[in-house]
């Protein structure tokens, strides 16, 4: 029985390693703000959100659409989703409270503990099926329809009866029936436990009565070592069946854990959705495209994390950058360049996770990996100079590049003079461009930007942070050639006042 709400045909692997650059991604794209909004102080939701989203630096169109459908169902039936989630959380909690199997020392106590646990699980499973029976028709997505119909089939009334039969028999009210062979020293080996019902016992005895009289003996109640020996024999006999039932409990726990894990992601998405609604920001389900389509166009794209932090709507950006492998962003300081760069990365990774994004329209090609190379604070370890550090970071990135990656550079390679910085940046970007990677580059390196502008093929988009005459930042980018000033004077003036 598989949940399959995150992938059409396999489980989400909680143990998969995070991308090697998860720390950079998280801090550069301010993902913690996103995770916190999704988690709402629930550690488990935080953990799952983080794992699913960071696993989405690569994505495939099919899975994205599969999840989008499920998420739409969730948005329409949030009460039902929360109910199912609560049932699975409840199952896991009750195990924690009722299961002492780990500490027990004898098969008989493992067995009785397992029977008790299984009785609880049977109840929870029934609860789950009833919830599904009542709501199944409200769901359209392939993922939920498959899950629900599977649960309805597997958890049939007949199945619950079968479980009940086992639970009754495993109390062994009629005693144990065990068969053995003789091993070395005539010790009993290869023990096998058989079902024993009163009728069967009678039948066996009848069969036996045609032969010489049955060999029967009683252990005297005051024969302490005899009573202990007998209980050892019983313990050995039920060792296997106790194990089978205890493992079955584990498996049911695993099932609920998986159900909870995969639902958790959608529950977290619902949390996020609620908060974005509060900020008044719009969201949409993106249209993912295959890599080869080279799609990159969006309207009203904004940085969700900034909106969450500011608790207000953020000015969105539009661009039609289909078939543009390289986007160079120049322009005013505090003109929203970094915010824009983050919104690009964030939306890409959210799209690939199957989520909605902060935009009114968003359609891009999927990528296999996302790399960020943002300006860093001065290295405090004194081990290397800043430029040295930047290049070594680039070199580490280069160790991990796979085809169709996305690169977000934020004022990279500027820790030297402009000429050298431009040369290096130019060489790096050119190489990435020619290898077919998608690059977004925020820069003040005029030489670098201008060089690409002068030799521009159609494959480059130039965006500029706008500057209105009143010098108020609009945080809106528009297409435009790189200018040789970044309006630093404006900011200087803002701070120092007009002198």
């Amino acid at each position: 029985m598989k949940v399959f709400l995150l992938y059409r045909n396999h489980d989400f692997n909680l143990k998969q390693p995070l991308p090697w650059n998860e720390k950079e991604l998280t801090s550069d794209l301010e993902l913690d703000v996103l995770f916190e909004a999704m988690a709402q102080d629930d550690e488990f939701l935080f953990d799952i959100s983080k794992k699913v989203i960071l696993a989405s630096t690569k994505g495939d169109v099919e899975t994205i659409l599969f999840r989008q459908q499920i998420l739409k169902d969730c948005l329409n039936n949030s009460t039902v989703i929360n109910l199912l989630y609560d049932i699975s959380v409840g199952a896991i909690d009750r195990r924690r409270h009722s299961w002492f199997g780990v500490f027990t020392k004898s098969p008989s106590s493992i067995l009785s503990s397992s029977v008790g646990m299984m009785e609880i699980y049977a109840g929870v499973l029934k609860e789950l099926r009833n919830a599904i029976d009542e709501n199944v028709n409200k769901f359209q997505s392939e993922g939920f329809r498959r899950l629900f119909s599977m649960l309805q089939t597997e958890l049939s009334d007949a199945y619950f009866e079968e479980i009940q039969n086992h639970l009754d028999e495993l109390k062994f009210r009629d005693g144990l029936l065990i068969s053995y062979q003789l091993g070395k020293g005539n010790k009993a080996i290869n023990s096998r436990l058989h079902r024993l019902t009163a009728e069967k016992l009678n039948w066996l005895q009848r069969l036996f009565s045609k032969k010489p009289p049955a060999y029967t003996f009683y252990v005297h109640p005051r024969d302490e070592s005899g009573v202990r020996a007998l209980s050892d024999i019983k313990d050995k006999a039920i060792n296997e069946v106790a194990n089978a039932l205890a493992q079955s409990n584990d498996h049911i726990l695993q099932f609920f854990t998986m159900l909870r894990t995969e639902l958790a992601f959608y529950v977290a998405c619902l949390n996020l959705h609620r908060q974005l609604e509060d900020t008044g920001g719009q969201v949409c389900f993106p249209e993912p495209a295959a890599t080869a389509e080279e799609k990159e166009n969006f309207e009203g794209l904004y940085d969700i994390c900034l909106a969450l932090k500011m608790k207000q709507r953020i000015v969105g950006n539009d661009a039609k950058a289909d078939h543009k492998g390289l986007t160079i962003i120049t322009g005013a300081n505090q003109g929203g360049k970094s915010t824009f760069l983050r919104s690009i990365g964030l939306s890409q990774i959210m799209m690939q996770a199957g989520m909605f994004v902060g935009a009114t329209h968003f359609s891009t090609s999927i990528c296999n990996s996302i790399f960020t190379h943002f300006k860093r604070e001065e290295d405090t370890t004194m081990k290397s100079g800043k430029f040295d550090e930047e290049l070594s970071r680039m070199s580490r990135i280069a160790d991990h590049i796979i085809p169709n990656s996305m690169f977000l550079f934020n004022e990279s390679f500027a820790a030297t003079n402009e000429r050298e910085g431009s040369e290096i940046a130019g060489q790096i970007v050119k190489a990435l461009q020619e290898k077919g990677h998608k690059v977004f580059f925020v820069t003040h390196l005029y030489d670098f930007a201008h060089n690409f502008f002068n030799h521009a093929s159609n494959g480059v988009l130039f965006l500029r942070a706008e500057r209105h005459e009143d010098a108020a930042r609009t945080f809106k980018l528009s297409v435009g050639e790189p200018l040789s000033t970044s309006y630093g004077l404006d900011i200087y003036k803002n701070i120092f006042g007009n002198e």
Partner: protein
Amino acid sequence: MKVNMSLSSVLFKKELKLVVQEPDFFGDLNLTQIIDAIIKDKENYNLKPYFFTPLPGREDILYRQEVMKDMENTVLLEYIQTFSDQMLAMHQKLDEAKGSSYKYEKERLFLDAVDIYCKAIISLELNLSILNLSSEGFKSFHSYLKYYIQSGYFVLLLQETRKLLDDLSRLRYSVTIKELRVQLLLYKSEPDYSIDVERTFEKFKQEATKDYRLQFPPYPMNHIEAAILEGVASLYPEIFERLVNYYSKNTNYLDETISIFDREIQFYVSYQEYISQVKRRDLQFCYPEISIDQKDIYNYKGFDLALAYILARENATVVCNDFYLKEGERVFLVSGPNQGGKTTFARAFGQLHYLSAIGCPVPGSSAKLFHFDSIFTHFERSEDIHNLRSKLEDDLIRIHQILEQATPRSIIIMNEILSSTTLQDAILLSKKIMEKVISLNALCVWVSFIDELQEINKTIVSMISTIVPENPGLRTFKIERKRADGLAYALSIAEKYKVTYDSLKQRIPS
């Protein structure tokens, strides 16, 4: 059980009275240490007497050397090891049987023991026939084994054992337990209930989980199990009656010659195992030539086995030494700087001779050793406060005893004796003792700081411990055959400071 054919022994060509007391010189020569390490983990076999008893004749030694050579074949060694393990397992089973108070358990354990015994013997015989063994000892044991296996007694024993075990292993019986009532039933084929349970819940399975089965350590049969076993016997009376008869009939199944072989062969196994831990490219072993009349003995690349055993485990360097005697030479006078390996050399000399006398390969690339009648050692000991005599007096009494008992066929090893007196006394006494040793014509190693002794007679060979000239502090442990000049140590220091004759001649301008 004894099958008629003359006893064969892989250790002794002819019968010999064994020594059970450790020889006196074992401690001085570190042979105690060596033998203890050899027989470690083999206490059950009581091997010490074999190692305490030197062989009387050259042909006895050669008989053993041949078997030992066969045992160098690692395949054979493995076969023997398997056989010993089986015999050990058999004895354990017999002990268990002896200790059991339940008839059917006791008898079955006995049957299991005999089964191990039969298998051990058959596979040993088979394995020996594959190998091309050349020693007389192995050949005669092997032919005994073949004879035994074909004997009517063994053939019948094997047949009965197999049949009975087979019949017992086919039985399956059922037991019902309800509260304190236990009932035995004939088995009727039925499914395993735990598999049913597993199947019901299989659908939830996601990944492998914990194993909740408890491990039950083996424990002796208790009276409840025994009572159940009685019940099984009542279900299958015919088979169990056969078991009872089998037990009473075969009490003396164990063959004496095979039993003896099992013990004796451990002498070779243990020695091979021991030296295999020492052997390296630079640490070899050889089969010494045994000299009866001539004393032109030699040993090349020899070493102290006890020391090498310790050093080899630490992967440290072991220094090998050579020695030889020619043209009437009888005495090694070992001198030189302290801690230069003199005592080690003396011990190695004794060890080599003793090990050769029990038929073992000895340290070295080649060796010719003398077939001695006794070894006498006198190593310096700390003063015994319970003894009223002085140390010098003790020394002299001991030396006197040695010289009284020693014959021209004896080996005398003396280490730093007469040190508790003045140099002049020591020289005087040593010279006197040396003259007696020489007139006795026995082989002798004498570690002494008294260089003057070498002048006494041509039968004395001077061996000195050496040092590295550039670094006199570094001991080489190399013992070389050269004249003791009392200067070796001083000379090297002089060279270091360029004040030797030659150096000074050059340094001092003409």
